[in-house]
């Protein structure tokens, strides 16, 4: 199935060009969870502070159990610090 991914902050580097802000479509296995997609992108789990699906936050404890649906938008946000 196809889902779209939005990487923010320094996580953009995992998209390759480091400057892309656009939502990127990717193919994942049916029933893939949020954690599956994070692993597929090669992002260490601890580098994702917040993830949301269609704008709704996914608690860290639910990442491994919450399946995605075709067409979902998954947004990943890194830890941040004030500045």
């Amino acid at each position, binding site marked *: 199935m196809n889902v779209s991914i939005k990487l*923010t902050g*320094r996580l953009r580097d995992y998209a390759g060009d480091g400057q892309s802000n656009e939502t990127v479509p990717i193919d994942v296995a049916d029933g893939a969870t949020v954690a599956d997609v994070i692993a597929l992108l090669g992002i260490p789990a601890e580098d994702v*502070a917040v993830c*949301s699906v269609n704008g709704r936050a996914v608690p*860290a404890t639910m990442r491994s159990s919450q399946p995605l649906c075709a067409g979902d938008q998954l947004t990943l946000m890194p830890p941040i610090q*004030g500045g």
Partner: protein
Amino acid sequence: MAWQGKILSVDLSAGTVATEPLNMEWAHDFLGERGLGTKYLIENMDPAADALSPENALVFATGPLTGTMASTSGRYAVITKGPLTDAIACSNSGGKFGAELKFAGYDLLLIKGRASEPVYLLIEDGEVQILSAGDIWGTTVWHTEEWLKSHHQNPSIKVASIGVAGERGVRYAAIVNDLHRAAGRSGVGAVMGSKNLKAIAVRGTRGVTVKDPKRFMAEVASTNRLLAENKGRAGLTKYGTNAMMDVMQEFGGLPTRNFKEVQFEGYDKVDAKAMHRVGRDGHRNLITNKACFGCTIACGRIAHIHKDHFTIINRKEYWHASGGLEYETAFAFGPVVGVDDIDACTFAGYMMNEHGMDPISFGVTLAAAMELFELGLITSEETDGIELRFGNAEALTVMAEKTGKYEGFGEVLALGAKRLCEKYGRPELAMVVKSQEFAGYDSRAMPGMGLGYATSNRGACHLKHDTFAEDMADQSASGKAVPCKESQDRTALVDSTGLCLFTTSSWGMEEFSQLLDAACEGEWTVDRVLVVGERVWNLERQFNLAAGLSAADDTLPPRMLSDPVPSGVAAGRVNELDKMLPEYYDARGWTDSGEPTSETLSRLGLGTV
């Protein structure tokens, strides 16, 4: 060791200077910079005094690690009573000025009184003169620095100065050093102006000694390696702090149009990516990054404006590269005023540096004025014909310049958001705590941030605590009070060392304790440095209580407490400060009315103020 062991005491009323020994007992209790500066302030003024009167004192304080080989060792702090807040002001800056002051032989400058005519201070390796500033009064920060270097025929002089904004008492006037680094918050520049002190020019050629040089170098190598390998640090180097904008956008914590909203449709035109983007005529906003003294992070941005942009057409003096957008400036000139023009935002940043103003306070004050304008309470007759509407880039840039020059409606914007909103009968529209404007994080989406804003001793501030992880993990009020208190204490310690807060992307208290233990006389364990941090926080609280503030000032504007956040991951929430504050006071060892108990003061070795 690490401390130079001397302070410079300046009485501007009498026109005298004196070198005095550093009070080492205080240094051991309050360390340096923010902590030691606060101690010196309290011992040299009545906290109830008017911030803009000669009775206020102005302290420039370095830390024991300022000017050492440790990474980010360029920090110094300005401590005084703030005219924006009527509370303690502790405004921290980087650049090269702080290390230079240390190299000149001083840990701290204590400035009292008021000069009868404009003056500047010239410090050259312990030789100190008070000189007439008649030739530079009324000029900009940028002109002042150039003039001083030229006049004294020494390009190595480092300068901290004020612009017209400081001279004329803009409530959020900054002290700018090295052209575009600033002790920005709470109006410390207005205090300097009230003393008729235009600038401090310093040249130092002495070193800083440490207790155990071999061990210290090993600790420096070890801590530098941690920074080098840290992903958060790498992000700061590559993108600068503005990498946070799209994170806050997606999270729904990006204050937009005076905090009415938390997501801004034009965010991607002013974020870090936009700074990197090559656009028209091959122009790219960002030129390079920049480091302060001794820094291995280099989060600073150097940028330029497209020469065809309306702000600088036929104004060649602004065609050069200068300090670029960071997250807080991008937020303050972008989303919170609804502007998505990166060149206009960059120009507004130039105005802050050139004239010496705090961009956060200016931007949030302008946002409040825009809301009042759109409500019909401010008219274009008052604003010199400018339509003060959200999204109007010309309103942003024109008002930034007018405020810096203290002209026209800029004189009203100079009041800050609280006083401006009171003037127009709508005090609830000021997004402030203790009269100081919010930074770029919404308190409803980030409840720990709201608690940190409410309890910050210098008024709303995002840099006096660190609950980012807790806020991003869970947007309820639960579990925020203790992390807020503990991070406030850690931050107070870091701000007292002479090093930059951004090292905490990689370092914990263990690293700070090891660096201090290798550099400073005595034994600096983790437990000891944590007590120093807590002691500094409580001393600042004591200053505020003596200045007349109370628990009633530990609050947030009604918009944060009552209006649900309209979108983002925390949609529907308000800040539940009433649930967090009692737990916070309890964790602090304070009474229900927010005063440190006698047991707490005794445990921290603090007396009465």
